[in-house]
């Protein structure tokens, strides 16, 4: 329908503006040849509205009275101002109408800056101001619309300042543009419908020529006419409309698969959210309830320019998304069709059909026919990590929850023999994919019959309770530590601050029975800080694993959450980087330069 090519009209107006004189002209663009705009002055809230008259047909505002000094002071204003605003609202309709309909019409704001002064005399005035206002606002026209006048270039309120001068306008453009100036009315006219998808803005140079008594003066003002978009392009695909998807190990809710791109040369505004423009709505064409309950299509879009010939367009992305975890037994193939409909595109071809060929494979929970063999040193201390167990492909699993358990292989052995099996434990953190074997009790290992243990590892998939089993043999070899009897003397490795005492001590979780020293090289705060660890393979590695989280003393460097004293960096837990040597006492960690001899704790007074 009819629309205003500007969001606001502004003009300055002076005391002395004569009754009947024109002050401003609003325009409305038409959509079809039969439309004819009828303008009306909507707001009559303030007394000053009655000072103006609106020509219903031409959109020209003129004065019903001459503006007096008293008129300026009659306008209430909260502050003392040299200029007061006269805010009017103009409505447009394709039929003659009364003010009451104003709330239902397109309207535009007209703001006059009523200046508490008479207009400057011809000698005083800066010539350019006869041509153009200080700030030229940019108009806009919607693509595919009728030609027509979109702006009055003359400044009505300044036309009579120099009556002897003749002012005329012309328009130039760097590149061909369907704009011209109506010589008789000085209106800027768009001469043909424009296509936004060809050019979003036209950069015009308005030329104002003032012929005075002596000379011809030329003034320029640039004008950018923005072309507004309408949904005049259907969505289209570039290349394939089909995506083959295989779902196997990654079966967790929320996972997205594959991507199909749909292009649309029109823009898609994200704001205001309720604005319906170029909205692509998609619908699953299948009625299969399982497909509907299990899958959905995720739709995102982004604005692009380069691929649309440097004009803004929209690229839509469609991905298949799981709306719930898939059972490991689920196995099926289906074609999912998704109809994308450009709801605001008038034409018939406003739809594209996307095809997702989906194959869901089952995931067997089983151990390939292996027997796990692990050898462990008899010197290993409690919590030493032995190894990890994992059903086939377990590291690729997402959305498949498998827990692991250890059981004695031969149930019929004597109670005494059964007690050997305390030696090895299995731990697993929530959401971790493997089970980790560790030395649980070194006491029993002193008995020779306990030094080869046969277990059964049972893996159980939680959703369907499928189980898989395999054999596990743990062999304890080498000689035990002489200090074995005094097991409770096993202290956290992390407490040791020098290589010597570190490598000489038995620490919790040490597979070799001895702590291991890592010597840092860097000067400042570094990830490679010096520290004493039960097993440099797993600690520190910036991850508090299943075994380490069983006891803070095993690897406080990875698991401590207490404040660290000294120079350090931390992510969530532990010590990401430290200065010099980092050591910890029951979870409280310190990082400091190694070469400082430790000063006496108290000064002489404390002795």
């Amino acid at each position, binding site marked *: 329908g009819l629309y205003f090519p500007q969001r606001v009209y502004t003009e300055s107006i002076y005391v002395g503006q004569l009754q009947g004189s024109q002050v401003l002209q609003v325009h409305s663009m038409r959509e079809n040849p039969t439309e004819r705009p009828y303008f009306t002055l909507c707001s009559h809230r303030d007394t000053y509205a009655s000072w103006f008259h609106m020509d219903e047909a031409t959109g020209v505002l003129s004065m019903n009275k001459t503006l007096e000094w008293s008129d300026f002071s009659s306008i209430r204003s909260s502050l003392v101002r040299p200029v007061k605003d006269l805010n009017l609202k103009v409505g447009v309709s394709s039929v003659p109408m009364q003010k009451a309909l104003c709330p239902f019409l397109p309207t535009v704001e007209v703001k006059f800056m009523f*200046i508490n002064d008479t207009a400057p005399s011809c000698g005083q005035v800066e010539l350019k101001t006869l041509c153009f206002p200080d700030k030229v606002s940019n108009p806009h026209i919607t693509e595919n619309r009728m030609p027509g006048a979109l702006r009055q270039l003359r400044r009505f309120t300044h036309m009579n300042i120099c009556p002897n001068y003749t002012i005329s306008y012309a328009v130039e453009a760097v590149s061909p543009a369907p704009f011209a100036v109506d010589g008789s009315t000085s209106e800027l006219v768009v001469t043909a419908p424009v296509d936004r998808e060809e050019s979003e803005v036209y950069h015009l140079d308005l030329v104002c020529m003032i012929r005075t008594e002596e000379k011809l003066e030329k003034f320029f003002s640039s004008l950018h006419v923005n072309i507004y978009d309408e949904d005049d392009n259907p969505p289209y695909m570039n290349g394939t409309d089909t995506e083959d998807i295989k779902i196997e190990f990654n079966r967790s809710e929320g996972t997205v698969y594959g991507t199909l791109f749909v292009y649309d040369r029109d823009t898609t505004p994200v704001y205001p959210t309720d604005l319906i423009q170029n909205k692509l709505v998609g619908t699953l064409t299948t009625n299969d309830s399982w497909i509907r309950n299990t899958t959905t299509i995720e739709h995102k879009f982004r604005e692009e320019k380069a691929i649309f010939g440097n004009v803004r367009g929209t690229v839509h992305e469609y991905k298949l998304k799981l709306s719930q975890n898939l059972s490991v037994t689920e196995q099926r193939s289906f074609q999912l069709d998704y109809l994308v409909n450009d709801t605001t595109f008038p034409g018939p071809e406003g739809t594209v059909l996307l095809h997702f060929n989906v194959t869901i494979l089952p995931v067997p929970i089983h151990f390939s026919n292996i027997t796990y063999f692990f050898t462990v040193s008899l010197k290993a201390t409690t919590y030493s990590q032995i190894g990890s167990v994992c059903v086939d492909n377990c590291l690729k699993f997402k959305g498949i929850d498998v827990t692991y358990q250890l059981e004695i292989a031969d149930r019929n052995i004597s109670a005494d023999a059964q007690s050997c099996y305390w030696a090895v434990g299995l731990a697993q953190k929530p959401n971790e994919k493997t089970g980790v074997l560790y030395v649980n009790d070194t006491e029993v290992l002193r008995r020779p019959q306990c030094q080869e243990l046969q277990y059964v590892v049972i893996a159980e998939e939680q959703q369907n309770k499928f189980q898989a089993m395999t054999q596990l043999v743990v062999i304890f070899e080498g000689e035990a530590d002489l200090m074995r009897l005094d097991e409770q003397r096993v202290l956290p490795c992390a407490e040791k601050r020098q290589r010597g005492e570190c490598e000489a001590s038995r620490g919790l979780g040490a597979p070799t029975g001895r702590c291991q020293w890592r010597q840092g090289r860097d000067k400042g705060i570094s990830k490679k800080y010096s520290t004493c660890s039960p097993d440099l393979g797993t600690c520190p590695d910036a991850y508090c694993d299943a075994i380490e989280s069983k006891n803070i003393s095993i690897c406080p460097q990875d698991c401590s959450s207490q404040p660290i004293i000294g120079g350090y960096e931390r992510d969530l837990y532990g010590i990401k980087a430290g200065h010099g040597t980092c050591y910890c006492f029951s979870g409280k960690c310190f990082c400091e330069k190694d070469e400082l001899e430790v000063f006496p704790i108290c000064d002489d007074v404390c002795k």
Partner: protein
Amino acid sequence: RLDCVKGNELCLKEPGCSTKYRTMRQCVAGRETNFSMVTGVEAKDECRLALDALKQSPLYNCRCKRGMKKEKNCLRIYWGIYQHLQGNDLLEDSPYEPVNSRLSDIFRLAPIYSGEPALAKENNCLNAAKACNLNDTCKKYRSAYISPCTSRVSTAEVCNKRKCHKALRQFFDKVPPKHSYGMLFCSCPLGDQLACSERRRQTIVPACSYEDKEKPNCLALQASCKTNYICRSRLADFFTNCQPEPRSLSGCLKENYADCLLSYSGLIGTVMTPNYLRSPKISVSPFCDCSSSGNSKEECDRFTEFFTDNACLRNAIQAFGNGTDVSVWQPMPPVQTTTTMTTPSQRNRDRDRSPNAIEPGTHINHLNPADNSLYQFCGSLQAQKLQTNNTIDVLCVDPQIDDPS
């Protein structure tokens, strides 16, 4: 001048005022549900009368103060009244009491500056950080925001953004500007531009307080800011106090750099938190862009340019960084419109290559008043000390309340 909480209390104690206030609130409620349009002229007059009556009440010209007790409540009352005023009924367009301090007041107390303008020879941002840690108040509030802003919350979340924002607001509300501005608006020497400007960019811990997984559309971000009284008010304050004006000496309509810097710092800790961009010229922006703006692109560009290309804000930051103030600057020659035969678009291209000096407000950032999603911030014109008698078409950004009449 009363704050709106006291004004509200006084009004409710006075029968005449409280009935008018209640009527006006009903008018608002009615207007929001289009009720007023269908009840005819008498209801509208009653609304008009209620509004006129309120103009005599303590509520009419009430304001709020940043960081005051019950600030949010005060702002709620202000906006409750404000949305019916338009045109010449306008109050000053920010809910906050103008501070009208001068940058020179701040410099005199600043430990960093020795009185004469400290041209950026040193890394003033580092100096400001040093000065802060040597002042117990600044040190305390600086650490109070850096801790929440740098503490990772989970593997997915870098920090608790809400806590970080709250602590940042506390820092700028509680720490004397000589310290907080020193770290936010410090000037950088050409020789040490990168390290110094990066330190300045890090002042608000942008990884937590500024950046986000996805960059929203600026108009959408503004709409979300408007749903929060604090953010809405700080943004209105920023539009009011940093409105550029090419013809004014300072490049600012309000000719007050201190008020502009204060309102900029007031945005920090809201969803509209701005930060420096990595650019040779001083340029700031909220974390948003104008992608997917559809037909509102121009309006969105104007909104962002109020941050990224605002001569008033840039001059204010440079003035603080150089230890000067508005009055120190040479009167700016009014913007010349030459009549040379080169076409304007040619001149536009020339201008973009102008050096990075304090420049007159050549780029006019006027927010389109007709759009009802922006703020009315028509600066009071008497604040303008104009050199020429040209009228200034100040395009006011107007929330353009539907006219009840």
